[in-house]
């Protein structure tokens, strides 16, 4: 499985756009990129998934450059409730079913 590297922590303020970048230099052709969010005392929650270019849903956008060696999760206009740990995962949907989490990025949104 491709190894992912993301910042340990980030700070932001309410109303700002937050971009969290994940490096995955060894991503394979069949690998997808997925992001999960985890609040304290809760299980992780799926945010977004993509393969290339840009994906947008009601929660976030995911930007993936052509070489796919990195990806950026973009959270528009964050609020205090977006304070959480964000995990970047890379894997082949067809090769096994388990999720491999790294250490994640702890996002702190301040008033």
């Amino acid at each position: 499985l491709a190894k992912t590297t993301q910042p340990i922590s980030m700070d932001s303020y309410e109303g700002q756009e937050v971009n969290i970048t994940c490096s995955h230099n060894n991503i394979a052709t069949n690998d997808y990129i997925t992001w999960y969010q985890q609040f304290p005392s809760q299980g992780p929650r799926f945010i977004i998934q993509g393969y290339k270019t840009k994906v947008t849903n009601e929660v976030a956008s995911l930007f993936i450059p052509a070489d796919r060696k990195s990806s950026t999760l973009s959270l528009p206009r964050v609020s205090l409730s977006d304070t959480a740990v964000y995990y970047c995962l890379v894997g082949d949907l067809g090769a096994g079913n388990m999720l491999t989490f790294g250490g994640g990025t702890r996002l702190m949104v301040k008033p």
Partner: protein
Amino acid sequence: GAGVSQSPRYKVAKRGQDVALRCDPISGHVSLFWYQQALGQGPEFLTYFQNEAQLDKSGLPSDRFFAERPEGSVSTLKIQRTQQEDSAVYLCASRQRETASYEQYFGPGTRLTVT
């Protein structure tokens, strides 16, 4: 609809005791996963079921850990002779039939503390 539920939410065990952790997946979800999350770290895979079949148990840390899903719905993770290093949050997740998505639905976890 109802999500994944786990019980108990908190469990304190004395070293050497056996514990059983329960997971109720989303109704109809074929796949069920158990993960272990140590404090300050990301979840780590323990084992995976498709219906009642345990297809992967490569993540179970020792033979003290045992999981079952006898009727393809509720699952139980059992830890025998608990040790302090077993203290962690145990997360259960379920997933629909194989789809073009990595989305798994997680329960709130059971926090196990071994004293």
